[in-house]
């Protein structure tokens, strides 16, 4: 879980001097298949020259007049989601991977998006669980307590059998769309699997309950395909105790597990949501 940039970064790059000609870099592209060039001036990295820059630039130019001088770097152990945040917030094509002040690789926008495709659910367009794991870790690292809301569609197997799997898929897409529209900058959504969705929030119990109620209300008031009546059950689990940052994976697993059991309990007891019992204690260090 949680792919790091070291697993996808490019190691096939070549440094180029600030005053070298663009033609020299173009020759490297043609002869050696290298598309990305960290630009060096007096042993310092001062920019990055990409294949796109090379297409735009006149071959007579010097590298200084074709490169992008916005240099952003991360370590090779950083998550692909951290890289995504960098690309989302900056108009750049490549991020340098630097470990112990040494350039070890390059991650490109195209490479990252190809990887993110593997973490995207094709039916709903939502991210898969890796996305939630990353943001849970981020919340805990910033001393915020994560809470998980687990949403499960009631009798989805029956709906599939009665109306067919195509209709079932359309309903899942409609639910995903409702959930997506309900998110804000503090909340994170993924498709957990089948007819289950997971939402991560930094909210306390009261805000979690309000947030869940709003979502459940939107779903129950929505006019689904063929007027099929859809109900969902939600389970809420909070990490309200101090957590140990070294064991974040256990915390995430435990939160999701307790929230899923709570949603099952809500379904059994015919409640719209249920709050998980707080049976584990962690400490944020």
């Amino acid at each position, binding site marked *: 879980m949680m792919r790091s940039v070291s697993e996808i970064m490019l190691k096939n790059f070549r440094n180029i001097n600030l005053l070298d000609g663009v033609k020299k870099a173009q020759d490297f592209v043609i002869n050696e298949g290298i598309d990305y060039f960290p630009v060096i001036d007096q042993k310092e990295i001062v920019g990055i020259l990409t294949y796109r820059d090379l297409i*735009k630039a006149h071959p007579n*130019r010097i590298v200084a007049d074709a490169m992008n001088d916005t240099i952003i770097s991360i370590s090779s152990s950083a998550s692909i989601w951290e890289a995504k945040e960098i690309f989302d917030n900056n108009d750049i094509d490549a991020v340098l991977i630097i470990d112990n002040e040494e350039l070890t690789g390059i991650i490109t926008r195209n490479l990252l998006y190809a990887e993110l495709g593997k973490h995207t659910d094709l039916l709903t367009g939502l991210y898969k669980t890796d996305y939630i794991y990353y943001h849970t870790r981020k919340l805990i690292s910033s001393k915020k307590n994560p809470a998980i809301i687990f949403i499960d569609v009631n009798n989805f197997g029956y709906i599939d059998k009665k109306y067919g799997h195509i209709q079932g898929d359309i309903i899942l897409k409609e639910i995903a769309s409702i959930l997506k529209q309900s998110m804000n900058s503090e909340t994170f959504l993924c498709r957990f699997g089948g007819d289950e969705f997971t939402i991560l929030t930094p909210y306390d119990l009261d805000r979690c309950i309000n947030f869940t109620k709003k979502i459940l209300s939107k779903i129950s008031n929505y006019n689904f395909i063929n007027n099929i009546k859809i109900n969902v059950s939600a389970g809420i689990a909070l990490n309200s105790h101090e957590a140990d940052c070294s064991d974040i994976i256990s915390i995430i697993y435990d939160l999701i597990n307790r929230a899923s059991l709570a949603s099952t309990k809500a379904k059994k007891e015919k409640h719209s949501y249920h709050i998980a019992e707080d049976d584990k204690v962690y400490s944020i260090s």
Partner: protein
Amino acid sequence: MKNVVENKKRAEITMSMSEFEIPPMQDALIVGKNAPIGPEAARRMVDIVSPNQYEIITIDHPIIEAIVIRKTIMNMIEKDKLVKIILDEGEKVVDVSTIIKVQLNIVLHVSKSVDL
């Protein structure tokens, strides 16, 4: 009848001489986005013969990438006003692959009156 073939090769040389201007560019250069010499190359070129005299002003414009301008001119006219004046006229003649040399003659007229 006898064929006569005349075969001559000749070279003509014309020479013109003028003083080398230092710096070789005048007051400003307007650099097109795909010009063969970019603004940094132009600045470095002129920096070798006239160090620290020119500044690059990057422009957000569909055709023009930058203006490389003599710093002393900006002591006389505010930078933004000067750039606007250069762009207003420059964009009519420059295209994406050209570099235009600009000569600016600035005469400051000051008139003051004092009570006698």
